[in-house]
């Protein structure tokens, strides 16, 4: 460890000296020696050094970014005792079990000692899939209507959406809770409805859909109308197949939103059988006696679905940002 710190100091200092040297070589006084052999070599050395320093800097920064996650994954393959034994050595970043069969002890223990852990995963999957399907359906319909139809109030809706997007509504969790309470949606059985239903309508996604549908040429729909298709049929059979990218983006955004949602869920669910993953994790995290292997196993396991989504759909995430925020 000390070697790393010393090398950082040395590299930073040498870089500073070389930077001064480079400025000196570029200065007026040196310009007549510009093509001298020594000056050219000095420039090459300086250039090489800066490339080296850049890579060094990138590697150190990358290490700082990934070491907690690497530690989390590696320690999920160990037991609590092994983690403590390895903690103060470099072996803490490596799986130390030679026998691969023993790697998953913490995972097995996790599923057997926290009965509701599997249930909370299923809950998260159910909540996410319900939210995604309804979000896609109702927001795309509304986005389509305000993009393509002229009807009284359509411009008013657009204005209201823009206003809502400007006004941050995050502070409305308390009044939302009060409204759900008044609607009678806080009883044990209806809590799930009360938790899910506020997330269905999203001005952000309506806007996303609208922006995309505006780009679809009118001729496409008119051809369908001439064939005698109704508006709703045209939407489902012509528009949706032609706008899969925006549907993919919205479902990914919704999935990330609902899967990672924590604040509202921890307020709504006290019954472990109803809790989604993010909330249930806290129970494992706070459990006494602490079992670090099990905690890391639960955190790692919960990250897998969302990591898969990121890995396979990075393109859509970037594109989604591009066609909402920048237009």
């Amino acid at each position, binding site marked *: 460890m000390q070697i790393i710190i010393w090398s950082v100091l040395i590299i930073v200092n040498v870089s500073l000296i070389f930077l001064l040297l480079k400025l000196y070589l570029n200065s007026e006084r040196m310009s007549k020696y510009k093509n001298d052999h020594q000056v050219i070599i000095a420039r090459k050395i300086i250039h090489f050094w800066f490339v080296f320093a850049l890579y060094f800097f990138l590697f150190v920064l990358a290490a700082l970014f990934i070491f907690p996650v690497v530690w989390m994954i590696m320690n999920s393959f160990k037991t609590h005792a092994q983690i403590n034994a390895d903690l103060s050595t470099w072996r803490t970043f490596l799986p130390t079990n030679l026998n691969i069969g023993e790697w998953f002890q913490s995972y097995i223990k996790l599923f057997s000692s926290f009965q509701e852990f599997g249930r909370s995963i299923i809950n998260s999957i159910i909540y996410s899939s319900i939210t995604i399907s309804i979000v896609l359906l109702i927001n795309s319909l509304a986005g*389509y209507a305000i993009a393509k139809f002229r009807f009284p109030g359509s411009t008013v809706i657009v204005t209201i959406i823009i206003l809502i997007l400007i006004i941050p509504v995050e502070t409305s969790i308390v009044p939302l809770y*009060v409204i759900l309470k008044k609607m009678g949606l806080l009883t044990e059985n209806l809590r799930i409805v009360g938790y899910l239903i506020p997330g269905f309508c999203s001005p952000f996604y309506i806007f996303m859909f609208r922006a995309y549908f505006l780009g679809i040429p009118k001729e496409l729909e008119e051809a369908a109308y001439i064939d005698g298709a109704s508006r709703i049929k045209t939407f489902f059979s012509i528009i949706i197949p032609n706008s899969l990218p925006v549907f993919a983006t919205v479902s990914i955004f919704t999935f990330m939103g609902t899967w990672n949602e924590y604040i509202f869920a921890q307020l709504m669910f006290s019954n472990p059988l109803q809790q989604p993953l993010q909330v249930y994790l806290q129970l494992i995290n706070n459990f006494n006696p602490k079992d670090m292997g099990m905690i890391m196993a639960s955190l790692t396991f919960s990250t897998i679905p969302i990591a898969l989504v990121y890995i396979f759909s990075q393109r859509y995430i970037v594109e989604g940002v591009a066609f909402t925020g920048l237009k």
Partner: protein
Amino acid sequence: MNQAKIQRANIRFFGKSYNKSEIFAGLLFTLPVLILGVIFIILPIIVSLGYAFTDANLLKLDQVQIVGFSQFSRIFSDPLLLIAFKNTLRFVVTVVPLQLTLSLVLALILNSRIKLNTFFRWAFFIPVMLSLAITSMLWMNLLNEESGLINSILMSLGFDEQTFLSNPDRALNIIIIISAWQGAGYQMLIFLSGLKNIPSSLYEAAEIDGANSFNRFKHVTLPMIKPTFSFVIITMLIGAFRLFTQPLIMTKGGPLDSTMTMSYYIYQQGIMFRDVGYSSAVALIYTIFLAAITLTIRKVLDKDNTV
């Protein structure tokens, strides 16, 4: 005959003519969203506006008394609220520049022809994949003062055992670092996509004109990524003003209220202390404050854009 049919289908409304079937379809398509939006987005704003003038209690919502502006006058004599506001402001003015610089520098480096590009991209993006709750729990364990990894590394470097989240001088700074660590990769990705969209012909033209790399950056890169830049800065600011999950999981606002933030305070007053009236008043003022900030920043950045 076809012409006549279309004309008959038109109706007039407020002096504008509409197609009847379009009205029907438009209203039908927007109906679900309108109902849900009115109940769960607009109504909460109205409700909090209403409760702000009452002494509403979460357990006795039926017996509400109108108290006028007294909840608002409480705001100005509440020392804890001032602390929460200062903490939030400190978080915002530290984390936004930190994260912005980090993500922009990384994006600029990774946009050049550097080796191992994909590896670095994923390395900086990995923390983004963790949810806020998981990030908070992971770092809570890493920063555990007796058995955490960070202290064990520090001790192997010859430092003394340190206090982290239990130290009022450090807790907020730690949350700042963790938030930047978690979020920078996402903004880096957005900047990278913005940089990729700059046509290379612009750089070639600048090179022909004799611009060095610094001038190319100043006169080509910066103006071209300005829309990305304003998008990133606005989302980052709004996100930072909302800071809530990390203190909720890691510190519960403590130690000594050093990580109490505005969102957490509003939540605490309304849900934990059941003082819906006061919580609504604070939320209302804070929402107006945030809206004003967002609008100002949008204006400033847009003005620069057109120049």
